[in-house]
């Protein structure tokens, strides 16, 4: 269960609050992907320093606590504030969270009563999204795709570029764009160190580039048999990372076939 301290940017006011465990974390990458007419994906990258990390937090406590928090968020800290004394991971684990993070709240809800009870004793919640501004990133462990632990029910299929147009009398016209391209979607359950290495590989080392599709047990045709067996080149066009328990993170990339 992460805990942390909020303070306004001057540090004059502080507030200790409780937050529900395993917040939803994500990275909004500055990489913009598009697909060309031959099926190849291309990336426009503004750079890692323009990635930003967000987390959806749910605060809870008594009405008094929530009122204080709400007042803090409304009056004291509109704009930029600081988070420090973080215990656990508020953001994805490739964000360095041992010091003070500068944050803003792009969205937040109003205080919500979640249990039927007298007002003064009942538990109330407040949901807000925190975005870390210029979040510092970890520098170790080294970026790597080794140790990937693929979960079952991965998608190793290919998409076809065929379209069938049916007339009123069911006359069919099949049109093939001749630009088939495969997509691999899977979930990897990783411990902290390997999760951090994988994240660094995607978001730093091979950021936007094509890389060799890793060897995964049971995955011989990651983009369908029509596209052939490994080795294949691929690009990661999407990535999510969610903490599933105190020691594991679920990393779910989308790897697309690369021809170049």
């Amino acid at each position, binding site marked *: 269960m992460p805990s942390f301290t909020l303070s306004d940017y001057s540090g004059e006011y502080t507030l200790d609050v409780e937050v529900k465990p395993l917040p939803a974390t994500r990275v909004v990458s500055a990489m913009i992907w598009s697909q060309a007419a031959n099926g190849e994906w291309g990336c426009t990258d503004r750079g890692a320093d323009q990635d930003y990390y967000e987390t959806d937090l749910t605060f809870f406590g008594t009405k008094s606590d929530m009122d204080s928090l709400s007042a803090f968020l409304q009056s004291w800290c509109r704009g930029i504030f600081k988070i420090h004394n973080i215990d656990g991971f508020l953001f994805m684990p490739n964000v360095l969270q041992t010091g003070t993070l500068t944050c803003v709240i792009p969205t937040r809800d109003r205080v919500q009563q979640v249990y039927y009870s007298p007002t003064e004793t009942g538990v109330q919640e407040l949901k807000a999204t925190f975005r870390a501004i210029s979040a510092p990133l970890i520098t170790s462990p080294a970026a790597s795709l080794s140790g990937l632990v693929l979960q079952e029910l991965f998608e190793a299929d290919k998409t076809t570029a065929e379209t069938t147009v049916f007339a009123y009398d069911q006359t069919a016209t099949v049109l093939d764009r001749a*630009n088939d391209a495969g997509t691999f979607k899977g979930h990897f359950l990783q411990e902290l160190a390997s999760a951090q290495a994988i994240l660094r590989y995607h978001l730093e080392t091979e950021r936007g580039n094509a890389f060799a599709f890793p060897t995964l047990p049971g995955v011989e045709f990651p983009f369908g048999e029509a596209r052939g067996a490994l080795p294949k080149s691929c690009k990661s066009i999407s990535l999510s990372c969610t903490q599933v328990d105190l020691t594991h993170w679920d990393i779910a990339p989308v790897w697309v076939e690369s021809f170049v």
Partner: protein
Amino acid sequence: MILQRGVIIETKTAQNDAPRGLYNGYFAWASGRSFPGSPTFPVGPWGTQSDWAFGILAMEPFTGPSLSARIGPTGGYSSMLSLDIQVAQSDFMDYLRTRGIHLNRCRAWHYIILDGVFTIYGVGLIDNTKYSDTGTTLSCIDLFKYLHRDIPNVPVNTGEFPNAPTSIIGDPLPVSMGFVNDAKYLNTGVNNGKLAVFINGGTSHTVTGCINATGTNPPTYFLVVGPGITATPDWVGKTLVGYDTAGNAQAVKIVTALFTTYVLGAVTFNVVGVTTAKPFNNPVFTTVASKLYPTYWRPQYPNEVVQAGSESWIFEVWDFSDILILSQDKTYANVGDLKEYADDPANQSEKIFTPANQVQAIPYTERGGIVVETSNAKDIGTASLELWNSSYTPAFARFQGFRIKGLAVTPISSSFPSVGSDMPLVRNKVSGPASGYSVVLNENIDDTGGLSILVEVPVPSISDLAGGHAYLVCDSYVREASSSTYTGTNKLTFFPAIRLGIMANSGKSGLNSSVGNRVVTKPLNTIPGGEYLLSTQLPIKGTFFPVNFLPNFYFAGGVGQVASIGVPLLPDANAYFNADPAFENPNNATKTVLVEIIFRVISDSVLRNIEMVISQLGWVISRNALLVPPELYQSVIGEKYGDNWGSRRSTANPVEGIPNIIEDVLRSFDGQPDYVDTDSFDNALAFRPALGPFGWFAGSQLTDTKNSADVIDEACKNALLAMVPGLDGKRALVAWFDRMQPSYVATTLDKSKWTAGSLSAIEQEDSQDVYSEFQLNYDLNRASGVYNKNLQINYTAENDTFPEDEDSAWKTWVVGISDYATAKALWDQARAGFLQTGTKNRLVLDLPWLTDQFNGDPWAAALATLPPTSAAQLLLSMLVRWCAYPKRFVTGRIAITSASAALRLLDTVYFKDLVLTGNKRYYAWVTSLKVLESEIEVQLLWYPFNSPDEDSFLTQDNGVNTGYLVLDSGSDRIILN
């Protein structure tokens, strides 16, 4: 079936970069990853493009192309193409910048590629480029957006037309196209002026003109050209050949053009004499004139003194009755003869006053003049004149000036022509020494000396001057003679003067022997009188213009004077040269203008040698009159192609009719011969023939600058034609209304074609495009800007039944059509439309391209046998049918196939659907095409009142109007197929 899309984009460079798909200056990009089989690569300005790059275009690379045609209610040229091209590479704009490539205004050829077979589907012009994080969008507009040019685009300029009227400088030179002759304005000569003439333009334009002929035998053929002809400058200097009705070549002479300059370069003038004036007692004329009371009515004896040996003076007798002239002292021995000249031709005579007839009655009925002059340089003592009337009471007289006479100059310089000889015109250095002619007064002059040169200049013949303006220019100067002892150091006081007179009688050798010269003195374009170094050339310049404004009367302004009362210096601003009575005087068989160039110097000390030089003297005559009446702006009747037309047009097959005209605009004025869909134009010409029994006699003159697209649009609407962009970018001209025949049906769009669920609801045309009354204005008179004729169909909303034939009121219900049956049929058609639509709209169309010519070959001898129906009537019969009912629209999608990719705008198809048409088929036109990802969106328009499943549009069930309605000498209508 493998479906790919491709595009070729020009870069206006010759660069190569295969990874980017740049080959020899053309980007060639395709979707997919490779071409299957053995592709048939497209051929174009790039040659054969077999190198294509994949992966440049975005996944959904094209929006469109979309093309549309608007054919209701009158056709025209409103269709355009749009196409967006998506490039996936985000650095593409940087790439273009570093390569120095600018894609705006570059062409883009779009292809649908099916199983490796390329089908061109739209050519656009890149109008805008925009880029984002993910790629670049190249937005294309119709190819011709910037290929159409403004016409006419040749301005009237003073360089090419130096004598063009000022009021039209900068205006566009009109362009005449098609049959624009109007015989009623030119009804002379052979065959009523209707004779085809072709100017052999060599490699440039050849012009068909309207000629007439003189009555001489053999006749001389004249090509009467209006200003429009001058817009084809290459005809100048070409051999002109005309053909008469028998096909025989005839030499042709251009009668006139609007801007023509005539410079008479062969005029010579005669040296009358060179004289000195010595002494100049009163060299300034005003002084002398004042002495002679020049501006006063003289109530009694003038009693003036003629200075000995040097003066003559001329005065005007102001009395209109008998005048007596007396010599007071009656000592004429030294005075010489007194001569008079009457300006009145009827009284023109010469009277010699001698001591024996010193008192004579001069029967003037008008003002006249008397010259009193000495015959030599003797001292004649004192003389005076008295003016008396017949009652011996003092007459009224007014002295108008005088002329200094004096000793002959001897010798004159050798370069100067001798007295009495001809001196070639110096003007423009036609001949004679470049430095001009000079005369040197070797006789030293004292402080009252002077020098004059008097020359006669023949007046050009009136026929040369008719309608023109003549300018007599004189450019001379005086300087110290080179032999002078005092060169460059001494000063003289300089008094220049120049006078112009008209010599009354022929055979006069000069001023000494002439009488009655009418003299005008003009202000001099020279330095003012004053003290100057004699080493300086002191100019004496004058321009008398225009000569046709010479005063009617003797001594109009007086010497040194401005015009005084009673003398109209500008008698008639509109007068032609021959309006001057002096030139009409039968006694003035030889007309001569006297030019006297005079200066006077006052020495600062001693004698000088003075040289006078004539550098220019002569006539400049120009015409800028439009001799033909303005109506003949429409005198040019056709223009054929030059080389750009190849074999499509020829001398015997010139530009005729609206399809030709539109093609001419594209080829000759837009300069786009490669973008003409010739098949479509030929097909349109088959329906809108220029000649033949049902020819569309069309032509006009473009006098105001407008974009050629607007010209085409206007021309299309004059003939119910539509111009659309073809899939290959070429302009196609379609007579869609006439193509509703089985032979033109390209395909049937039915349940096997329409994508399931794609057919839209059927829409009906807006009521605003449905008409029940009509007015067609045609036969535009370009000179007046007014349409001479119109056709009308009126009162279709107010009345049920067309009047009976005996009731002349029907001629106000249908105006302009003389045949009752035809008028009734048209009215009934319009009325039936109103009953169904309830729409009372009036379609008013201006038809500047349609003349009032009858149909058929206007030159044909058998013309009289053809039905006298104009193209405007043909158009009306179509419009009544086309516009009386609302058309219907439907939109659906069909899969992209080789067949659907071949559909073009305004193709005629059968539309059929189980529900929407009750499984009946209708003729319909393709009015919109838009390429989608896998399908083509098609809009159809059809006319709902013809019977479905019928192959002939002309046999519709309600058809009172079947095709063309043509008057046939009062007979029934003629149905054309």
